């Protein structure tokens, strides 16, 4: 009798997953074809299947710009969505997101230090582009790792998740304050460099950088799926989870580690990309009406990828040469969508509310 319930739900979900995957492929194709120069869909498909593209310029655009950017968008959307999901479940808080524990503040501090100190010693803008890129990526990674280590030590000591959340928030605030002080005392030129980093960017990754980011994100996503059982137990509340045999402390550390790898690596390469991590888990829960992490994890990977590609398409302002900062587009388009969904469903019970 019960077995039937499980069987029918497997069939139902298979259709959903295949549908979402098809949508992802279509949006991916569109994002390759559309931009300041429109490339015919036929040529784009030919390019993807390894055929010869008629126009050498188109080939260069696809291989050097659009393909790495589209892949980055999928990685970023999935990684931030999953890390937001983990933080919301771990802290039982619908307002939690990937950066709630101060990961982006830490990355920001790292980048700010490199920019401002580099400028003070001189020559920061003189070194080759690719070296400067890696320097910024490295410093962002070190910055977020340092913040994370402090949070990790705190996670071992405090019992309640809420205390940990507050420690994370306080730490993030203090770190941001240091960046503000540095900005206050610096020249317009490095403030601009920092602000541009903080807008986020999907298009700045070379194949070289992508070959570092991809394995980190993909492995972390696989590990996130493997954490589904623990995350599901946490849906009961910490006490019930513990009485179901969950080791709270080690689970918490593993989840924080996983989230920092996802959010930290993305932030290091693309800057602090706002909104996606907070909103995609809510969207997935509302659209597909489930809290089960075994389902939510693949759903969010697909949905996060799709949305990020769409946001990037809009940011390109197709047909024009101008582009909008991706951070502005994610919130500008995403916020009304979430509000519309909440109003339409008129249902506040979908995640954590009593």
């Amino acid at each position, binding site marked *: *009798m019960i077995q039937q319930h499980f069987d029918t739900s497997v069939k139902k979900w298979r259709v959903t997953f295949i549908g979402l995957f098809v949508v992802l492929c279509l949006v991916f194709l569109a994002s390759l074809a559309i931009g300041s120069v429109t490339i015919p869909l036929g040529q784009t498909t030919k390019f993807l299947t390894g055929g010869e593209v008629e126009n050498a310029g188109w080939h260069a655009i696809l291989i050097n710009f659009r393909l790495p950017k589209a892949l980055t968008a999928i990685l970023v959307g999935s990684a931030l969505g999953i890390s937001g999901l983990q933080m919301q479940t771990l802290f039982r808080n619908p307002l939690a997101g990937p950066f709630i524990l101060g990961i982006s503040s830490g990355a920001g501090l790292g980048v700010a230090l490199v920019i401002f100190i580099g400028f003070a010693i001189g020559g920061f803008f003189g070194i080759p582009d690719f070296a400067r890129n890696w320097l910024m990526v490295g410093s962002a990674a070190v910055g977020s790792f340092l913040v994370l280590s402090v949070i990790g030590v705190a996670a071992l000591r405090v019992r309640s998740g809420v205390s940990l959340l507050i420690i994370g928030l306080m730490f993030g605030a203090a770190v941001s304050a240091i960046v503000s002080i540095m900005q206050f005392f610096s020249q317009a030129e490095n403030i601009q460099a920092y602000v541009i980093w903080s807008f986020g960017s999907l298009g700045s990754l070379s194949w070289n950088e992508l070959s570092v980011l991809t394995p980190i994100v993909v492995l972390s996503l696989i590990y996130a799926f493997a954490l589904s059982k623990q995350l*599901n137990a946490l849906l*009961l509340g910490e006490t019930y989870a*513990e*009485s179901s*045999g969950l080791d709270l402390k080690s689970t918490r550390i593993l989840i924080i580690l996983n989230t920092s790898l996802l959010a930290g690596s993305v932030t290091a390469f693309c800057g602090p990309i706002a909104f996606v991590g907070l909103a995609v888990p809510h969207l997935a829960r509302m659209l597909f009406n489930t*809290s089960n992490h075994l389902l939510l994890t693949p759903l969010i990977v697909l949905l996060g990828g799709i949305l990020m590609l769409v946001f990037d398409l809009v940011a390109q302002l197709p047909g024009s040469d101008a582009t909008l900062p991706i951070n502005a587009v994610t919130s500008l388009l995403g916020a009304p969508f979430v509000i519309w969904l909440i109003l339409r469903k008129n249902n506040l*019970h979908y*995640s954590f*509310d009593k």
Partner: protein
Amino acid sequence: MSLLQTHNLTIGYGDQPLVSDINVSLEVGQLIGLIGQNGVGKSTLIRTLAGFQRPLSGSISIGGIELTKLKAKAVSKKLGVVLTEKPTALNLSVLELISLGRHPYSGWLGQLKKEDVAKIEAAIVQTQIHHILNKRLFELSDGQLQKVMIARVLAQDTDVILLDEPTSHLDLRNKIEVLDLLKKISQSGKAVLISTHEISLSAKVCDLFWGVDFGVPLEIGEPDKMMFSGKVKELLHLEEGVI
């Protein structure tokens, strides 16, 4: 057969003992009612027995092994709880919640084996909740939710079940149904401990009362005897002539 035993157990917070030198045991087939005023330490005793909170002194053993020597997973196969707090994610379906009761046994991703499904099914049959399996938790009445939480702990398949005020917020009919259900569960070979303010109803089903009061040792007695001797009134500080 004793499933859970305490040895000179003292419970409380910090250096403030609530109840001292508790020596009790939970036996197979027993349904025990823990009674006492608000704030006297009923929930604290349940939390301490479940291992969520350290005892101030003394020890607890489950199936002859000291609780502190057992890993969380081993404890979860011997002792289950139903607490006053609701689960955090109220959009879980009833079936999903009950399935989570199999957490200590299911595969590394939570896959259910034949045996798991059979236990879940048995829990559903015992609590008679077939008709609400696909409902979400937030759609349930308090009575239904309590039965679902009991089904979850049944699916966890433990010898000992501790329930903190399982009848609070329920109407009379649901109180009776839940107490009746707990009685049947204890008779199926488990030991069940409930904390309750529902003295007269629980006296009908409980095998023993454990009475707790400020600053005195825990009292053990048969419900009828404790009621007639005036012990219950004394424990709850009820004045003569009230009701």
